[in-house]
């Protein structure tokens, strides 16, 4: 009776804590502005199926893709096993589905065991790639410290999980062989039928039960630990990859978003009658581009929380390859860090974070009136955004359809439109565009080349 009670307490606590953290992430993502969804949803579902479920983009790099697939598929199927663990845990039963599913159960667990074995191998390959082979994309400056550790922690957890699975199943198999009570025969499991006897053969019944219970608890505790660790980690992608691929822009990559307010403004400058239509319009806030997470779109923030920090984007970025400071992965990590900071500050409810102009009686701190004297530019330097060639290599490379370029361009828009700043070289460009409608100030006529025909 003791185990089910303990299990219920642990389970509820784990879910409550995790639930709170996930709610917070939801709130942080919604710090971003509303965005309109364009395009048809069937294409969006296709993206979810092919790119998130089907891992299509991962397969541009075969070696990591295949090992990642092992872990991914093992993860998906282990969920089936988890259902049984939950049922057993709450009711005190043992392998609840074994009797009713019969040989299908044997097949299922065997299948999961084979996947787990492959995942075990993959885990070591990944640890080696990060720590021994030192694959360059895991070594950039933004990966120092926590991000590097984060990458490893998850792999350690994976190993613990697999130790749990195999000691649980292995000891069970030996117990079944001894005819121990409660350990009903389940048929031969693909891995633990030989691994179990090899490791635990000859041990006494009570020791074996101890090992079996240890494995069972280790398994579920690692799962709960993982659940609570996810929100702080790059591993959030295992959940967010799905919505993120759904909400990814469907437009051609070269298309920049339109700014209707400026469009209207310019239209009315060029044509007086257009200005008339707009008379009596309400006071709209004149704010262009983005300097903070509350000015980005919410899908930009969803992107940031989905980022796996894999560095595929950075490894193909022409600016980064040639030694510039820009790293599209760092852009994503910075946006997430800033969203965390703003989210945490807003959660305090302290009126100190209400912007000075807006302070007033009874005003509650919210994303609309938030100000802490900082901005995204405290994380992302000008030098970084100025180095971008808008080549879309990062967008193309991302396995989960994240778009770092979109954020860079919004920061540039802020810089030019709100601060009239930006690289001084561009002044000549702007002047010539404004005065002669050409990208270079030349005295020649536009059709002078026709003389050469």
């Amino acid at each position: 009776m003791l185990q089910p009670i303990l299990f219920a307490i642990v389970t509820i606590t784990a879910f409550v804590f995790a639930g709170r953290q996930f709610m917070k992430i939801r709130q942080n993502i919604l710090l971003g502005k509303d965005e309109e969804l364009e395009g048809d949803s069937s294409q969006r579902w296709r993206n979810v199926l092919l790119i998130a479920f089907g891992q299509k983009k991962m397969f541009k790099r075969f070696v990591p893709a295949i090992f990642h697939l092992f872990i991914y598929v093992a993860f998906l199927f282990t969920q089936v096993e988890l259902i049984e663990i939950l049922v057993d845990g709450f009711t005190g039963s043992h392998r609840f589905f074994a009797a009713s599913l019969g040989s299908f159960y044997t097949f299922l667990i065997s299948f999961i065991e084979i996947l787990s074995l492959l995942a075990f191998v993959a885990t070591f390959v990944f640890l080696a790639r990060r720590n021994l082979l030192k694959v360059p994309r895991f070594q950039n400056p933004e990966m120092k410290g926590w991000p590097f550790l984060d990458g490893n922690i998850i792999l350690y957890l994976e190993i613990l999980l697999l130790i749990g699975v195999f000691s649980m199943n292995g000891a069970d198999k030996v117990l079944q062989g001894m005819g121990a009570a409660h350990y009903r025969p389940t048929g031969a499991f693909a891995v633990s039928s030989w691994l179990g006897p090899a490791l635990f053969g000859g041990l006494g019944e009570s020791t074996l039960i101890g090992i079996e219970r240890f494995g069972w608890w280790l398994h579920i505790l690692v799962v709960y630990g993982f659940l609570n660790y996810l929100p702080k980690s790059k591993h959030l992608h295992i959940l967010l990859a799905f919505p993120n691929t759904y909400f990814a822009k469907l437009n051609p990559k070269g298309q920049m978003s339109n700014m209707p307010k400026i469009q209207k403004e310019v239209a009315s400058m060029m044509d007086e009658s257009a200005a008339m239509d707009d008379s009596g319009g309400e006071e709209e806030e004149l704010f262009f581009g983005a300097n903070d997470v509350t000015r980005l779109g919410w899908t930009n923030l969803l992107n940031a929380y989905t980022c796996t920090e894999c560095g595929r984007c950075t490894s193909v970025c022409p600016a980064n390859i040639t030694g510039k400071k820009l790293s599209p992965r760092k852009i994503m990590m910075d946006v997430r860090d800033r969203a965390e900071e703003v989210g945490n500050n807003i959660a305090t409810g302290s009126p100190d974070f209400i912007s000075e102009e807006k302070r007033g009686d009874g005003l509650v701190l919210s994303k609309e009136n938030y100000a802490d004297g900082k901005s995204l530019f405290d994380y992302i330097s000008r030098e970084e955004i100025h180095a971008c060639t808008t080549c879309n290599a990062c967008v193309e490379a991302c396995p989960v359809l994240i778009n770092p370029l979109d954020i860079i361009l919004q920061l540039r828009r802020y810089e030019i439109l709100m601060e009239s700043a930006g690289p001084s070289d561009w002044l000549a460009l702007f002047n010539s565009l404004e005065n002669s409608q050409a990208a270079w100030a030349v005295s020649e006529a536009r059709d002078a080349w026709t003389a050469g025909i």
Partner: protein
Amino acid sequence: MAELAAEDRQPEVLFWVGCAGSFDDRAQRVTVAFTKLLQKAGVDFAILGQEESCTGDPARRAGNEFLFQMLAQQNIAVLNMYKVKKIVTACPHCFNTLKNEYPVLGGDYEVVHHTQFLKSLLAEGRLKIEGGQFKGKKITYHDSCYLGRANGVYEAPRSVLAALDADLVEMKRCRTTGLCCGAGGAQMWKEDEPGDKRINTERTEEALATGAEIIAVNCPFCLTMMSDGVKLKEQQESVMVYDLAELILNGQ
């Protein structure tokens, strides 16, 4: 275009020349080459001449939306006034802006890049390649970001090159993974940010490593960047950088 309009005639296609094609010495030669091809193929085309303005691509990508909107709306007014239906351009930046960014502003046209247009002229037999000057020559093709990744056009230029009967060698980074030449995003108009190397040097090294004698490009900015890279590597005697239109014209 104004002359045709005066006669109330509609050309088959409007040739959008773009700033580089109009003013850059090297790119002007591409403009001339493409024009000659259009004439050879008997295409009835027009240009806007003085009425053409920059599409606004560099302004928009630098972040200057006001300037972009001014240029774009002005261009759309002109294009709509002439009831333009189809546009061909030799610049992938103009191509992208006209094709993807003008429609929401009221400028809806069928826009093709000159490599796509050349492909259809060749397919229809309006242009023919003779002589086989390029037979056995090693050519490598550099994907521009704005034709390639931005708009997914990878095969049209390659099929045009295939018509030359040359020996096409790919760089390791090609098609979706093609490396930028370094000019996009208004980089053309500014100094590089501090780093170890220029982007065009990196890309040119890759192109030279294929052993190709000709680097084929589809963009006036790539043309500048790759030519500069070849000069920096002091290979200008043995390796030439050409736009596809120039190659096709030479193959006539």
